[in-house]
């Protein structure tokens, strides 16, 4: 009897377990078929699409400005209705939003994220619209290539730049790094860069240079140095397999250079956890005299109170094997859940608000408004775009004409950066660039925190790690 009871009890428990499991499994199979993305039509029958990156309440003035633009657009194209969304691209939540189908129809991101997004199918194929609205033929092919995969286009690059070397003029003056005519001297090679940094440190006590070290920014920053030292990071063999090739003397020299900046010359800040925000803060609050970045850097003024006339941008220094500057920029993408009508609307808005092949009167006015706002906010307007977005020289001249009217910095501080032809612009590495940056972050951190580091071993390990953990996993 006792045994019977026990058996019954056990059966019951097993039964319940089974039921629970079945319920769970059933619910696994069901569900997840819900509607994704924004419905095409709103209650008034208008085609609606959402636009991310809308200014939130902390930025009331910009919000009002944008809202005005939205109202004007909706008046001009009355079949559309814009839903605003304050979502700003952020690695922490992007995947979830994209998978859940809650991305805004229109979102902006950076060049470094493009591959990941296209591979995972988080961006809509917009080839048709790029052709229709003239982007495909008018845009700089170098940029189009970045957003193209298997012949399809997935994004609209709207800002592009090459990296340069930012200099704090007032620190340089204090350090006596001035030519006879009063202009600022600047380094043109990485060796000179180290010398200048030493002078700054000796004369003012301020670290001469700040390099990023964390959150992939370390690797990203280091690419400029590495390429100029002749490092070749990867190669594709005849079988299509990618091989890591930076276990080389060039890489050792480049890493040794960073090591020397810290331990031989001692010209870097004490802090060794430096992401992009920290990087800008260190330079913007005059706690370092130089850093590698791209223009314009309005936030240095608006956020950290730096004087815009204290900044100067010069070409990236040359290394022993060349003078390479990394290309970067922003790209607009469209949610894969968007319907054709929504994509069309999103393009019309983008052309109205951001970028289009031909400049209309209205767009010129928009651009002027934007520049005026930047100046009102205390930001920087340069006399030209940082990069030739369009192939048509006349189109670029038009841009230059508009921005020249509003330029609020001395063009001399930027001329060398724009006009130096010895600099070669390079896009990111073809595959696994984010993974490579993470590996390089580790290398940079190690040489900056460990005086007794074995660079040979460090580089070999990094190369092998990158090969085994990332390149070998590619299909």
């Amino acid at each position: 009897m006792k045994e019977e009871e026990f058996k019954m009890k056990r059966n019951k428990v097993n039964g319940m377990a089974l039921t629970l499991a079945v319920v769970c499994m059933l619910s696994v199979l069901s569900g997840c078929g819900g509607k994704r993305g924004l419905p095409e039509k709103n209650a008034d029958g208008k085609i609606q699409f959402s636009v991310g990156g809308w200014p939130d309440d902390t930025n009331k003035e910009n919000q009002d400005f944008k809202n005005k633009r939205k109202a004007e657009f909706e008046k001009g194209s009355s079949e559309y209705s814009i839903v605003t969304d304050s979502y700003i691209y952020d690695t922490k939540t992007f995947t979830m939003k994209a998978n859940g189908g809650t991305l805004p129809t229109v979102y902006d991101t950076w060049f470094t994220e493009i591959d990941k997004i296209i591979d995972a199918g988080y961006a809509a194929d917009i080839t048709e619209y790029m052709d229709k609205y003239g982007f495909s033929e008018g845009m700089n092919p170098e940029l189009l290539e970045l957003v193209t995969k298997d012949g399809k286009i997935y994004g609209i690059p709207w800002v592009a730049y090459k990296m340069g070397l930012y200099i704090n003029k007032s620190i340089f003056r204090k350090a006596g790094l001035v030519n006879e005519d009063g202009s600022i001297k600047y380094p043109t090679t990485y060796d000179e860069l180290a010398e200048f940094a030493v002078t700054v440190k000796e004369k003012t006590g301020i670290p001469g240079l700040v390099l990023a070290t964390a959150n992939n920014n370390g690797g990203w920053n280091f690419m400029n140095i590495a390429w100029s030292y002749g490092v070749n990071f990867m190669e594709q063999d005849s079988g299509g397999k990618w091989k890591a090739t930076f276990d080389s003397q060039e890489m050792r020299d480049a890493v040794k250079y960073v090591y020397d900046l810290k331990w031989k010359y001692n010209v870097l800040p004490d802090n060794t956890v430096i992401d992009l925000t920290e990087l800008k803060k260190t330079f913007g609050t005059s706690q370092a005299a130089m850093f590698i970045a791209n223009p314009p850097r309005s936030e240095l003024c608006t956020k950290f109170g730096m004087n815009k006339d204290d900044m100067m941008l010069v070409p990236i220094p040359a290394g022993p094997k060349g003078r390479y500057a990394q290309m970067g920029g922003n790209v607009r993408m469209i949610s894969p859940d968007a319907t054709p009508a929504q994509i069309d609307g999103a393009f019309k808005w983008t052309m109205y608000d951001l970028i289009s092949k031909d400049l209309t009167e209205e767009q010129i006015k928009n651009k002027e408004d934007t520049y005026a706002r930047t100046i009102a906010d205390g930001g920087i307007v340069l006399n030209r775009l940082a990069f030739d977005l369009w192939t048509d020289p006349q189109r670029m001249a038009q841009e230059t004409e508009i921005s020249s009217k509003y330029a609020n910095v001395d063009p001399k501080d930027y001329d060398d950066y724009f006009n130096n032809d010895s600099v070669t612009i390079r896009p990111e590495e073809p595959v696994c660039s984010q993974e490579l940056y993470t590996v390089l972050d580790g290398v940079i951190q190690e040489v900056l925190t460990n005086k007794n580091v074995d660079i040979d071993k460090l580089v070999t390990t990094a190369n092998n790690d990158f090969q085994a953990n990332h390149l070998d996993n590619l299909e």
Partner: protein
Amino acid sequence: MKFNEKTDGLINFSDLKKTRFKLLYWTMFAILIFISLICIIPILWVVISAIKPMDEMYRVPPTIIPESLDFNVLKNAWQKVQFGKYFLNSFILIAGAWVCDVFFNGICGYALSRLKPKGTNLIMTLLFWTMLISGISMVPLYETFVTLGGVGHFWPLWLQAGCNAFNVMLFRNFFNSIPMAYIEAARIDGLSEIKIFFKIIVPLSIPVIMVVTIFSVSHQWSNFMWPYLLLGEDKIPVAVKLFMIDSSENIMDNEKMAIMLFSILPPAIMYCFFSKRIMGGVSMTGIKG
């Protein structure tokens, strides 16, 4: 010091007549002072930094105690961020989550501890395993909420608080410690199960409810990931705003500290205000026998 009034605890008045116990008492007192200092110095640092003028913030070397005070930092930070709205959102989030947390986990813990229907062991095992897993389920859960139409609403967050395996365990452990004799006595007096629950169990449970309340409130106050994912700009709570501010370009460092101060103040005030009640509630209960 009225040592002769100390009638409870490990050491009581009769012990404290001896010198070595007195010594022990004062040593403990000194250690506690030290610990409490460690706890509050970083917070004081925030307060100081929040009223430090910008130029002192970035001076080399920076000042520890500011030479001049700039209360405008607080004002500017508040105006820039319009915190009132986010505080209200936090309040709605916390209130709903608290109700669900106490109610669902409480009755679940009670059933598992006192009623023990068939299947209790199975559920206990499942609950325990649940505590061990995190991260695997994020995307599927997000998809679930999207499917159920929870994006932009508070209720998914409330319901999420309603299934907290740890709190279920906490309730169960607590109910386990209530002497069965109370319930037996009530049964003999002819009280129904429901009456037993409300007349005997609930009043006895105040300590554990208080503990869960504190956990629930402080967890929700700093809950960031899910509100960030689910709620729109008009509904986000303070913690999410904090995160957004960290990467925001137009907030200065001292203003950032001021904003952190704002995020500390309300719960601190609430806690100071209610702590007597909370602790009083804890000690007034009848578990002591």
